[in-house]
């Protein structure tokens, strides 16, 4: 089987978030970029399966929509074990653009399993995997928390609100994965980093696409307000506030 993992290039999760140009653009100065953590988990799981069943998974390809600056992220994916990298040379303006670019390339190849992280840690969109499956007219399984290949068949479990379902699907399909699918992401070895130098990283020119949405402006959350004290004889008020004001229960 051939597995494709779609990876997004995102700021390191410890990045201090700032904006420029009147809060219309993310300030990229000094930002370190990483593989989106959910995508990295998808890749990790694919690699684990390939390691465990050498003959079953023929090849793992990673694909990214981005400009040349995202290549280190693709190289990292190659260093931890992906066999091939593809970069579609386009700015990932919105989820629909990204999905359209991906769909165009994928439809010309023959992947059996396409994996996406359920969201990216920058736009928190939960969009690309689902959009891609629709553009490709493929079945999709979302919120996948367990993925394996046994006797040539795909085994999937997906999270539902209040439980878990075992789902079967024909291939090809799009698996949209969430946390739990793999343990910790891999650390590249010296051998892996060296090997990544010579692994193929293909650059494909973008097609014309359109955007459906735009992140017009950004705001930072308001600074923490002082602790709101509640009378110990009125505990009910605390629960009400948590429910109605903080909206956490």
């Amino acid at each position, binding site marked *: 089987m051939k597995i494709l993992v779609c990876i997004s290039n995102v700021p390191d999760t410890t990045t201090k978030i700032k904006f420029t140009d009147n809060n219309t653009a993310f300030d990229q100065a000094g930002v370190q970029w990483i593989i989106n953590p959910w995508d990295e988990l998808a890749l990790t799981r694919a690699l684990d399966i390939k390691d465990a069943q050498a003959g079953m998974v023929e090849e793992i390809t990673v694909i990214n929509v981005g400009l040349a600056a995202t290549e280190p992220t693709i190289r990292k994916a190659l260093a931890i074990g992906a066999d091939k990298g593809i970069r579609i040379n386009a700015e990932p303006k919105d989820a629909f653009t990204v999905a359209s670019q991906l769909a165009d390339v994928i439809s010309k190849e023959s992947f059996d399993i396409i994996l996406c992280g359920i969201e990216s840690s920058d736009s928190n969109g939960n969009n690309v995997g689902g959009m891609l499956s629709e553009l490709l007219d493929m079945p999709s399984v979302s919120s996948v928390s367990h993925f394996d290949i046994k006797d040539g068949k795909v085994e999937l479990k997906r999270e539902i609100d209040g439980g878990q379902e075992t789902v079967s699907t024909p291939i090809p399909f799009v698996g949209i994965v969430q946390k739990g699918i793999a343990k910790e992401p891999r650390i590249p070895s010296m051998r892996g980093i060296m090997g990544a130098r010579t692994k193929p990283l293909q650059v494909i020119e973008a097609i014309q696409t359109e955007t459906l949405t735009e992140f017009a402006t950004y705001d930072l959350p308001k600074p923490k307000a002082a602790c709101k004290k509640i009378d*110990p004889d009125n505990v009910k008020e605390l629960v009400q506030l948590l429910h109605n004001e903080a909206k956490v229960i």
Partner: protein
Amino acid sequence: MSVLVYTENWDGKFKKLSFELVSFACEIAKTLNTNVVALSIGKVNDDELNKLGTYGASKILNVQNENLINLNNQAYTSVLAQAAAKEGATLIVFAHNNTGKAIAPRLSVRLKAGLATGVLALPSNFQPFTIAKKVFTAKAIANVVIKTPVSIVTLLQNAFGVFETPVAASIEAFNPEIKDNELKTEVKDVNKVSGKILLTDAEIVVSGGRGMKGPENWGSIEELATLLGAGTACSRPVSDEGWRPHEEHTGQTGKILAPNLYIACGISGAIQHLGGISGSKCIVAINKDPDAPIFEAADYGIVGDVLKVLPEMITAVKELKGN
């Protein structure tokens, strides 16, 4: 023109989020001078369906189809697309949960309608449609502009609330066409999970400190945690004393947590403890000492005896959940 809402039910009863979605849609429909159509898939009786009218849905599309018992992304997308076309929907509203995340992006492509996920509030503008959502893992908020004539949003749960706006609702049986090739995935087994939540995954954490006096008093922490679907944690002195297992120790040298809600019970909040919880979105502190540093970090605080406050909190949460 209409606002279409995708509702969800559990064993024939609407989930609370369905009422919230209808309330949210109703508020928008008022501004747009249009009406709310709710879509329900599955076996829900008319009494239950009529409840949607209480929150402002004037029409309810009732889909009952053997092939749609379990979530199937392609087939559900088809149902929604057909409903949207039939009702001339200009806005479609989902919950920002596993189901919403599965269908909304597919529908966005099917209808060529811009999608904003995890939205926090009503649109700030309709020309163009502009709405706020959390980005950068809640470290910022983006105002998303949807550029297409039809918009889709998924609403963050509890972001809006439930409001009654009773209208007379008409229930209409709706039989969308489902093609065989849209039924490729199949649910083999459903496993409803219950039991302990992994501490680092928990969205709510109830944590106890030395103010709990002894391990025999942990019953109330566990009861509150079970009620809230929360994980349980403790401060370092508590695990050092052996009152609780080491895995629960939270702080600089223990677990680093960032839940939506962290309830600190009888924890003074030494800096080493605060270092492990500072990523929490909301912190509640219950402590006898009004000068305890935990109140500096907390959003809500009760100065009082935690052993008295906790049982009252349990009662209040039970009342809330009962509604």
